[in-house]
């Protein structure tokens, strides 16, 4: 469930920063300044990446400290790898929320669509892993590239695919947002 909880953070951040700002009209003030439109999705992507990094590092340290306090043998390096592994997967869905934000203007709709994709991906992956006759389902979502880093360490190739996907989504959101009518 942790990927679900963490994955919602960048979705909410993207919904608030773009669709939310359009809906509450603070986007009018921002775009009245000499700021190129591409700054908005890119800055939002940067902001939720930093926020996620802080979140997963804090999560790793608290979990590790709690484990140590209760005498559980947990390697800090493994714990950090497991937590950092949440980052690329969450970024994919955050960047998807950027694209949706560049199209619709209701933050709840952004959260619904991108959050729905996250939940659907999680469930599809879980079903595929449990039921052998539909095991292909585990291969069709971004969760395919979310291994068990806490046991096996970070897989550079998987992380690379997810990060590339997140960057691609962010890049796609730029022209989509640039063409958007910012309505009153």
């Amino acid at each position, binding site marked *: 469930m942790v990927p679900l909880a963490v994955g919602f953070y960048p979705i909410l951040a993207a919904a608030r920063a773009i669709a939310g700002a359009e809906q*509450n*009209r*603070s986007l*009018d*003030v*921002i*775009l*009245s*300044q*000499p*700021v*190129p*439109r591409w700054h908005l999705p890119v800055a939002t992507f940067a902001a939720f990446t930093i926020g996620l990094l802080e979140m997963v590092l804090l999560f790793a340290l608290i979990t590790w400290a709690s484990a140590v306090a209760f005498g559980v043998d947990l390697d800090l390096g493994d714990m950090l790898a497991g937590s950092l592994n949440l980052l690329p997967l969450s970024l994919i869905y955050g960047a998807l929320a950027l694209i949706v934000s560049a199209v619709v203007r209701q933050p709840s709709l952004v959260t619904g669509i991108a959050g729905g994709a996250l939940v659907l991906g999680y469930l599809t992956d879980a079903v595929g892993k449990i039921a052998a006759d539909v095991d292909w389902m585990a291969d069709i979502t971004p969760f395919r590239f979310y291994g068990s880093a806490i046991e096996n360490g970070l897989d550079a190739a998987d992380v690379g695919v997810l990060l590339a996907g997140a960057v691609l989504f962010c890049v796609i959101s730029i022209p989509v947002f640039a*063409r958007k*009518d*910012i*309505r*009153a």
Partner: protein
Amino acid sequence: MSEDAIVCERLTKRYGKHRGIEDIDLRVHPGEAFGFLGPNGAGKSTTIRALMGFLRPTSGRAEVFGFDCWRQSVEVAKHVGNLPGDFTYDEQLTGWEVVRHVARLRRHDDLAFARELAERLEADMDRPLRHLSRGNHQKVGLVQAMFHQPRLLLLDEPTGGLDPLMRETFLDLVAEARADGATVFLSSHNLEEVHRVCERVGIIRDARLIATEDIGDLIRRALRHVRITAAAPIDPAPFAALEGAQDVHGDGTTLTLRLAGEVDALVKLAAQHEIVDLEIGRASLEEVFLSFYGRTENHVA
């Protein structure tokens, strides 16, 4: 590049069920104060949003100081102070935080004029926006639009929520900006306010710019409500014969009428009586439309 501050050529924006604007042709010269009059929903805000590059024109084009409003919106924004209708921003921030944020985005470090504006408008700049009245929101909006002393001020219904005293201060500030060479584009549905600031007005109704007028001409030809109270009974007939007189009612010593056009003849006629009281009230914008442009309605539709 165009020398004009604002140029719209057949500017059209349609979206969904909303009408937007149709074929707006407009030129505002540098240093001019141009009033943009029309009822709510007529297309005033849509025009301003197209000028700011928020909306992509369906057809036609708009330029500000020679820069295309859609393709070169960053260049446009450098020269424009924009006050959106019903200004609002992150409600957690105080007025000063909003202004500092805008200043950072503009790379404009000097807040001296912002302080002067805030002081003169008596703006409450230290409390979060969520605790501010509509009038105080608007003051913060005016400070953020004007503090960088832009070449063009785009003001969408700027005095909404301001008390009469602050309205005067605002009108003084706009006059001073103009004296410093700024161009002003003021959208309003308040004829009096536009009269105070602007030399020319564009009148927009049902998405179309139906006229551009010298404000003096508009006021002279606009409908007025007249009420004359005389010391002795007053004959309505000569008043009904006046050019532009409508709905003339005489009730003993009191006479009421509506007058479209010059007041000179009316005053001279009234002066033949011993006048106890004379009231001449300005018509509302809606009435101006009805009296002055009602006849063009068939051409517009």
